[in-house]
């Protein structure tokens, strides 16, 4: 596994971007970038040197959790990382109702007018996903394997 630990400056820039979009002001993780411009966060206590040593001893497949996708123009938080950041997200939140939630979890885009860009969806007290608005609708980013397969009751 080729490791690219984010340098302090890269981390600072990323946090600045996250603050602008989400209101997130800290990332208490060792950050790594993988080939697909995905940022992973590791909260473990092993040092960088120990991790590098481990990669020399065995096949390291995954380190920490997938937190952020940098492929698009705006840094997009992953579906599961929203739960990890939920106390810190303060911006671009839209509340959806139960019917919209049912559609959302099944992978449908939502016909909701919202400012262009990244939107965090909230249902009651739960953060239920992240989407992108073109001002007319919010495009669905629920990962394929996580979409509900059942019919809407």
């Amino acid at each position, binding site marked *: 596994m080729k490791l690219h630990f984010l340098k302090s400056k890269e981390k600072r820039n990323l946090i600045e971007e996250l603050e602008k979009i989400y209101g997130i002001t800290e990332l208490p*993780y060792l950050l790594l970038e993988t080939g697909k411009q995905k940022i992973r966060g590791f909260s*473990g206590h092993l040092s960088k040197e*120990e991790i590098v040593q481990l990669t020399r001893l065995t*096949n390291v497949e*995954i380190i*920490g959790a997938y937190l952020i996708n940098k492929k698009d123009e705006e840094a997009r938080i992953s579906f599961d990382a929203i739960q990890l950041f939920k106390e810190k997200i303060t911006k671009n939140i839209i509340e959806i109702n139960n019917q919209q939630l049912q559609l959302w*979890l099944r992978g449908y885009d939502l016909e909701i007018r919202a400012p262009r860009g990244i939107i965090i969806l909230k249902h009651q007290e739960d953060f239920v996903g992240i989407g992108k608005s073109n001002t007319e609708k919010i495009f669905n980013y629920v990962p394929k394997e996580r979409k509900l*397969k059942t019919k809407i009751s």
Partner: protein
Amino acid sequence: MRYEMKPLFKQRMETLLPDKEDFEKYNKIIHIGPESFIRCNTIKIPIEKLLSKLKKKWNVVQPFSNYPEIMLVNQNLEPGELGNSLEHTLGYYYIQEISSMLPPLALDPKPNELILDLCASPGSKTSQIAMYMQNQGTIIANDLNIGRIKILSTNLEKCGVTNAIITRKDAIGLCASLSKSTFPKFDKILVDAPCSGEGTLRSSPKTFLMWNPKLIKKFSRQQKTFVAFALKCLKKGGTLVYSTCTHAPEENEEVVDFALKNFPVKIEKISLPLKTRQGITSWNNKSYHNDVKHSCRIYPQDNNSEGFFVAKMTLLEEVK
């Protein structure tokens, strides 16, 4: 379709359960599906919050006061109902059979420890360990097969586990590489070994058909090697928990006996939230070390669970 025990399997289980009534209870319960246990994933949600959400739709109870994260959905459910809830999609709980939660309880992980989960996929126990570690310290979660690694990675991701490093190597090769290097020794190791799966008949009735005495011998050899190599990676005073989901003594007590007779280990008594029975000290004309009795056998008829085996050992001197 109802499967039956193969004659030799039945004979072995009758030897393990000599009381006729006890055996009949066993033979009855293995044909009934398991109960619907879930584990609150405290990495993502506090226990009380999840409980309050789930109680709005299901009859949920917490059977063990010392382990409030363990919940039982005490009602009939539609197929897939547990897996299709909003709370499951968001990773608020993990569907996990109660007996499979026992090895991490025996391991008793603490934040800031370095823990090796040698045969980690599908990740039920790894995510449980990470939860008890509060995503601090480090877990090295290893498995061999790339398909199983993907399942492991998906499950850890879903549970919000950020303190794990997933490695792909055969267990022996990994331990050999680690022990020969200057990589830190582990505080704790879980060897939840591949096994013949006799304890999983309730959730996986095909085990009735797949059961094969040759496999038991093969697994037993492999399990002993796993434990032997794992012990080389453990620090002095460290803990190794050995577990299987089978009743076969060759894969359980015989492996613990092997560890006791070949390594400086001590078998610890374990307190678990289920009724357990002592490890047996003889089988098929073989006598095991007396301390093997501190191991725990979990039978389905005792707790309305799956079958399991758990043993906890402390390493008294570092193994070179």
